[in-house]
């Protein structure tokens, strides 16, 4: 290979990483391509296989349907020949068995409209046969007289023709399915041979890519690295004057080659410097041995001091003056620290035994002086703290006792308050009941008032009607008066006529005598009529006058009733107001009752809280006494110890007022002047609980 072409092929203008990435990328691309091709082909084959499976099932179901149709036909014919029931049963069974297969086949043919139409046509023919002939024949076969008709129907050949047509449709469906299957098989075979070819091509391509990649990697990566490694091996072996190959490359391998070249140069420089250093090291070694000895001894002393043993010393003499002085000073330091520690330990042991009377004595300097001062101050502070603690505990004890008494009283009073509130609540409830009753009564009164008003209104209406009736009567009387006037006129005319008649009768002489008597009678009758009419007129006038008075009276009664209605209305509204006021009152009282009950609940809670605080106070008293006992352990200057205070006498009395003993109750404790016996007594009294 020519060098120029080789340089071009090694592509050292790019770094190694993108080149190797590109290489593997190409390999992955080829492999992925092969996989995709295989996947696609296999997918196609699987799809075809699914279609083939559907076709197979279709063929199987069609064959079954054909057999079932044959079985039905045979069963019917057998029944026509033999008349035996088992054939009708076989017929019905075959017909029933067809159903699920028909359903399944419809599903299988769903995406083939032509085949589905053919299948439906076939089903219609079968239905026609079954409903038009078979069922009828089965029925006719059940009667002796109609058996021949059933058979005659078969002899016509029409049912057979229908079945033959159905059978032809079914066979056609089978034929179509088989053709489809053959076509599919051919397609599958073609696909298989294609997949073999394409997979082989993919495999060859992948192999070629792998070989090229392998060759390239070996030629342009591994071989230069191996050459550079060889140079490094020779450098290690000490062969310094070697030429480094591939140094002209522009990629990482070129960098490595150049680095190896400069490494070789620096290696030569270092070997020169190492020879000079070896001489200087020999002189330093002798002094280092002596220093090492002192270091070891010093280490032992310091280690002992660190472990708390200050008795160790450096007991060796050194020729070197500096080293000797260092050893002596270290010894001095260790002995000084030892004596100070002894003094401090004496005082702190006393402190540990609760003896606060010891102090650090003597004069010290620097940090030792500060340590002395701090330590002494600490003991002083501790002493004053103990004193203060005792004083405060005594004070707290007294206060707690007082507080305990107060809390007990509070609890008792709260109890009383609660019972008073309970009574108040009961009273309020009674009040509520009575107000509710009042309200009910007012509502009833309101009803009664309304009824009274309605009655009065009705009376008023009746009065008005009475007045109208009387006025009508008055008018009737006037008409009657007119009528009697007319009667009087008639009577007058009759009288004059009678007189006239009597005159005429007189003129007639003897013949008119009888008539004269009649005329006389008529005149008398007319007179009596006139009198009667006058009497009636008088009576009518009389009654009209009385009627007028009546009307006046009734009108007054009407006015009275009007007044009654108004009054009744006022009464009703007043009673209604009373009723609503009552309701308002009842509501207010109910709210009051609820408030009282709430107050009662709060008071109960207060009582519980008061009791709890009393119990807390007693517990606090006990803890304070405990504290006092603990502080009494410290031994201090007796002149500094405070007087213990007397416990107030009211505490037991307060405790006695409690409803019963409780765990927090504390019996009285006598005052304790000598601390130790008091502590003992306290322990005894506490042990009772």
């Amino acid at each position, binding site marked *: 290979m020519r060098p120029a072409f080789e340089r071009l092929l090694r592509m050292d203008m790019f770094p190694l990483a993108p080149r190797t990435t590109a290489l593997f990328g190409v390999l992955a691309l080829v492999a992925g391509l092969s996989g995709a091709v295989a996947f696609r082909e296999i997918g196609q084959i699987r799809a075809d296989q699914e279609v083939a499976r559907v076709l197979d099932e279709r063929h199987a179901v069609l064959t079954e349907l054909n057999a079932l149709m044959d079985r039905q036909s045979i069963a019917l014919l057998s029944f026509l020949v033999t008349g035996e029931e088992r054939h009708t049963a076989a017929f019905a069974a075959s017909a029933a068995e067809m159903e699920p297969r028909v359903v399944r086949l419809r599903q299988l043919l769903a995406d083939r409209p032509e085949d589905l139409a053919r299948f439906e046509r076939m089903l219609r023919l079968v239905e026609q046969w079954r409903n038009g002939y078979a069922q009828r024949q089965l029925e006719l076969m059940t009667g002796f007289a*109609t*058996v*021949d*008709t*059933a*058979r*005659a129907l078969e*002899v*016509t*050949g029409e049912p057979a023709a229908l079945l033959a047509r159905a059978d032809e449709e079914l066979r056609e469906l089978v034929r179509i399915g088989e053709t489809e299957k053959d076509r599919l098989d051919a397609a599958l075979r073609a696909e298989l041979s294609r997949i073999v070819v394409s997979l082989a091509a993919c495999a060859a391509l992948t192999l070629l890519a792998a070989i090229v990649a392998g060759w390239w990697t070996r030629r342009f990566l591994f071989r230069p690295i191996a050459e550079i490694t060889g140079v490094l091996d020779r450098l290690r072996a000490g062969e310094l004057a070697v030429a480094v190959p591939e140094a002209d490359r522009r990629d990482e391998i070129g960098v490595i080659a150049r680095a190896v070249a400069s490494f070789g140069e620096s290696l030569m420089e270092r070997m020169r410097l190492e020879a000079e250093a070896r001489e200087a090291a020999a002189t330093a070694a002798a002094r280092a041995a002596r220093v090492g000895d002192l270091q070891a001894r010093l280490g032992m002393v310091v280690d002992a001091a660190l472990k708390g043993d200050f008795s160790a010393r450096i007991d060796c003499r050194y020729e070197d003056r500096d080293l000797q002085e260092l050893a002596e000073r270290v010894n001095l330091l260790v002995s000084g620290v030892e004596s100070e520690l002894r003094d401090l330990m004496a005082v702190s042991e006393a402190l540990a035994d609760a003896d606060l009377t010891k102090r650090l004595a003597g004069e010290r300097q620097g940090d030792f002086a500060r340590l002395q001062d701090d330590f002494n101050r600490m003991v002083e502070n501790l002493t004053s703290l103990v004193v203060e603690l005792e004083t405060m505990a005594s004070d707290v004890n007294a206060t707690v006792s007082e507080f305990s008494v107060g809390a007990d009283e509070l609890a008792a009073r709260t109890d009383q308050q609660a019972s008073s509130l309970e009574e108040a609540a009961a009273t309020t409830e009674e009040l509520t009941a009575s107000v509710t009753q009042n309200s009910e009564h007012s509502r009833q009164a309101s009803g009664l008032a309304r009824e009274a008003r309605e009655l009065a209104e009705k009376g008023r209406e009746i009065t008005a009607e009475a007045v109208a009736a009387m006025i009508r009567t008055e008018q009737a009387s006037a008409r009657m008066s007119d009528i009697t006037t007319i009667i009087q006129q008639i009577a007058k005319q009759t009288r004059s006529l009678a007189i006239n008649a009597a005159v005429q009768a007189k003129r007639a002489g003897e013949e008119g005598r009888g008539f004269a008597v009649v005329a006389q009678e008529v005149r008398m009758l007319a007179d009596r009529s006139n009198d009667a009419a006058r009497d009636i007129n008088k009576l009518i006038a009389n009654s009209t006058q009385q009627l007028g008075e009546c009307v006046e009276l009734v009108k007054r009664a009407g006015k009275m009733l009007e007044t009654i209605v108004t009054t009744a209305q006022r009464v009703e509204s007043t009673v209604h107001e009373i009723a609503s006021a009552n309701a308002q009152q009842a509501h207010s009282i109910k709210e009051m009752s609820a408030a009282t009950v709430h107050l009662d609940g709060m008071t109960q809670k207060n009582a519980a809280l008061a009791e709890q605080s009393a119990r807390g106070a007693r517990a606090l008293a006990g803890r304070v006494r405990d504290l006092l006992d603990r502080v009494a352990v410290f031994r201090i200057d007796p002149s500094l110890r405070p007087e213990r205070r007397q416990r107030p006498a009211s505490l037991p009395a307060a405790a006695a007022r409690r409803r019963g003993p409780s765990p927090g109750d504390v019996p009285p404790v006598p005052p304790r002047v000598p601390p130790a016996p008091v502590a003992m007594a306290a322990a005894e009294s506490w042990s009772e609980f």
Partner: protein
Amino acid sequence: MQQEPSQKALAMRPVNLGAGLAATAAALLLASVANAAAPPAPPLSLIDARLIESLRTILKSETVTVTLRARRADIGEAEIVALDRQWTKERSQQRQPLVARIMASPLSSYLRSVEAASLGLIGKIIVFDRRGLNAGLSAVSSDYWQGDEDKWAKTVPVGPGAVFVDQPEWDPEHAVWLVQVDLAIPDPDGGEPLGGASFDVNLTELERRHAAGL
């Protein structure tokens, strides 16, 4: 079966119902020639409307209608002749596929049951299609095609209501007078007759039944 030839000879002469009585004397004469022991023939007036109606009722069976409707109408003359010849030939043979087929038909079965149920009143019954070919028989006939006989000629072409009563005939074997009554078989849906039927009615038995007040 034995009376077939004489019946044929009778059928050669066209006789109608109107001239029945006139022909009776001739038939009687002929019958007395055939068998001197024959009693006088009962009157044909015994074949009354009631009897005809009962015969019609027999033909109203669906078995008859269904069978006749299924018969081919387009059958050719040559084929008819060939079938008739085959029938005649099969009568003298062991193998009788055509005779067996017709005799085994449901209609034949029905007609046999009718004959049996009549207890001797009705003899052989032949039902033929509108072309005169046998569709069903209660007993085997001498020929397959009735289109050349009065059985067909006096019924099917006449119309759905046609009735033809032949001359009485003495059956020396059973010593009874028989008369052949032929009827057209109407289509229940109307139109042309579906075919015809021929009944051998036992006149002697009919007379006996009349005398017994049946």
